[in-house]
């Protein structure tokens, strides 16, 4: 029995934000209230810290199987737990792709064996992620991994006809089709297309590449009644398309990454490949539109798109480096700075974007709160005032490709609790 004493409980699901004690018995929360007595429980002092539902990341890359030099399910799980996450969804661009029950079950089981975070693999929409024919989505859904999210992430579903069939077919098991929304013919570039790309002579990807794809995808979701989720939205046009589709009753949600909230294409001026990512970092105008979409509820979740790459592949000429940034261990600090400190939204809303919001998209009641008796004890305790400087070599991830190297962040995870057991305690992986 554990008593989390004196923390500021921020629970979006019950709209609570006040100092409370939380008693955990076994894998569940047994009691929440003021001045609870220890009653033989181990008391963990949480004064000055925030107690929130453990974070859920709809979008990570753990590279296993096939890319274990960059990340493994074990190293990725450590990074996730240290970042305050209790559940993460690794994308299927592995080798082999997560496009069958056997591969998704392998990933899910490895996650269970490691035991630091629930690893809930995303299934591929198309076989081998080749964009030609549907993968056995139902079989993946019925597997032990209980796959609900499907994506060809890294690429959009190339044709409208195939996406239509995926949205239709997935309805029988309420699949969520997660789209990497970039028009295939407009995305042949290395960075956002605009003033900076003009200056640098780097091929650009226009913002319209995303907007056009979101419009296509939303139209098909409306037509089919299928469930659509737009990954890592990055443009003003993209969020406006989602906003309108939602207003029309289309079943669509979207996520934003911390890096798209914090960084612009100006970062690319030094040709530092740490800032190369897909979709690319946009201009400040787009960043402001994303923040407005967070404030008005158009954006449903923050997802990291944690994309580790081994140094030998990432640290090279900008043009030749792969896209992607690690993000699990910096997400909280970046979100607090860009959304809460910047006055875009409340702490409760920021917590919602990292826990309850993504949990609803996953349709898994054990995550995202509420923090109340009888609910799973999947919690994070973080110190919102603790400042630290991002040191790439100190990350738990096997890769160091953070765009936030040297940046001072405020807000650090103290404890992470998965089903009543600490996965992180006092900022360290619990043994």
């Amino acid at each position, binding site marked *: 029995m554990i008593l989390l004493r004196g923390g500021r409980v921020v629970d979006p699901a019950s709209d609570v934000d006040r100092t409370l004690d939380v008693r955990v018995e076994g894998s569940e929360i047994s009691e929440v209230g003021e001045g609870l007595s220890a009653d033989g429980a181990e008391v963990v002092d949480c004064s000055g810290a925030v107690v929130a539902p453990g974070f859920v990341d709809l979008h990570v890359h753990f590279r296993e199987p096939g890319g274990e030099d960059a990340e493994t399910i074990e190293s990725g799980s450590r990074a996730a737990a240290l970042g305050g996450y209790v559940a993460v969804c690794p994308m299927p661009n592995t080798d082999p792709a997560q496009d069958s029950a056997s591969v998704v079950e392998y990933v899910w089981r490895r996650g269970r064996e490691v035991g630091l975070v629930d690893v809930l693999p995303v299934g591929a929409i198309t076989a081998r992620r080749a964009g030609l024919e549907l993968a056995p989505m139902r079989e993946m859904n019925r597997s032990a991994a209980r796959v609900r999210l499907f994506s060809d992430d890294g690429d959009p579903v190339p044709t409208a006809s195939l996406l239509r069939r995926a949205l239709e077919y997935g309805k029988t098991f309420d699949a969520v089709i997660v789209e990497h929304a970039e028009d295939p013919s407009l995305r042949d570039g290395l960075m956002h297309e605009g*003033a900076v790309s003009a200056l640098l002579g780097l091929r*650009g990807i226009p913002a319209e590449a995303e907007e056009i794809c979101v419009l296509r995808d939303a139209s098909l979701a409306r037509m089919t009644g299928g469930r659509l989720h737009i990954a890592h939205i990055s443009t003003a046009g993209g969020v406006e398309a989602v906003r309108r589709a939602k207003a029309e009753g289309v079943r669509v949600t979207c996520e934003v990454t911390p890096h798209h909230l914090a960084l612009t294409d100006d970062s690319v001026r030094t040709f530092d490949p740490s800032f190369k990512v897909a979709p690319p970092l946009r201009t400040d105008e787009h960043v402001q539109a994303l923040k407005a979409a967070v404030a008005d509820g158009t954006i449903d979740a923050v997802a990291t798109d944690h994309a580790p790459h081994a140094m030998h592949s990432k640290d090279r000429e900008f043009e030749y480096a792969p896209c992607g940034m690690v993000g699990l261990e910096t997400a909280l600090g970046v979100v607090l700075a860009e959304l809460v400190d910047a006055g875009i939204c409340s702490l409760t809303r920021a917590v919602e974007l990292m826990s309850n919001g993504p949990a609803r998209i996953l349709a898994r009641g054990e995550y995202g709160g509420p923090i109340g008796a009888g609910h799973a004890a999947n919690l994070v305790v973080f110190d919102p005032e603790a400042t630290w400087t991002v040191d790439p070599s100190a990350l738990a991830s096997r890769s160091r490709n953070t765009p936030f190297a040297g940046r001072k962040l405020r807000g650090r995870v103290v404890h992470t609790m998965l089903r009543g057991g600490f996965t992180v305690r006092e900022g360290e992986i619990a043994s």
Partner: protein
Amino acid sequence: MRSVKADPRHLLSIADLGRDDINDVLSTAETFEAIGEREIKKVPTLRGRTVVNLFYEASTRTRVSFEIAAKRLSADVINVSSSASSIEKGESLRDTARTLRALGADAIVLRHPAAGAPAFLARLTDACVINAGDGAHEHPTQALLDLYTVQRHFGRVEGLRVGIVGDIVHSRVARSGALGFKRMGAEVVLIAPPTLLPLGVDVFGCRWSYDLDAEIDGLDVVYVLRMQRERHREPLLPSEREFWDGYALTRERLARVRPGGVVMHAGPMNRGVEIDWEAAESEIALIESQVSAGVAVRMALIYLLLGGQASGEVAS
């Protein structure tokens, strides 16, 4: 060198140089040009220093120009090309940079197909890095020698009207040229069909136009760019004939260049694509002067980057 950038060891972009820096290079180049006219075309200035020409792309004039420049300064010159080195065995630029550092290179002249490769190299080495052309990004020494050529010909750059014509979006010559001419007070206009102008072209702070015929008689310098078909990843023009019709420097357009106006081209020229034979051979074409200016300008640049002072005494 009085430099406006953070790290004055390198020349990665023409934007790294302020007006005074450029004037230093040009005046020093003048001194060095005189050396090129002497019987013994060599000074002992950089004896014992090593300059590496690291070329990941085929090049004749730029590589030879840098080689002659460094040799006339008495530096030891090593040419490394991607096809005859460990680069072909897959050695990364990072490891090549380490090797060159360990071997004691004082300056590395880098030509590379990837934009930003010199910036990457500059982070890895103590040597001075000179960008000799990186992808579609920049070719700052080309801009310097173009400025020198124009300065030589007109006696000034300030106030001249310079039209840069053709495949702007793929051209490092256009980027460095536009920024360089503008910095020295010229009035620059970029002339191309919309598909060959970059989105965001306003960042260069100069005028642009789709209509060469409307611009040509107002130009002092008609700077013709090579059509870089090898960089076109999608069809950007209906045909070369259409480009010829609208944007090539034909003999008819040449006849409309104002008296005293000149034609420039960084080479290699595609005669019959962006320029016709008569225009390339015309008396007002400064193309050979550009090439010969290259040696003096690169001598000046290497000399200044490796610690020399801008003055008239270097030639003694």
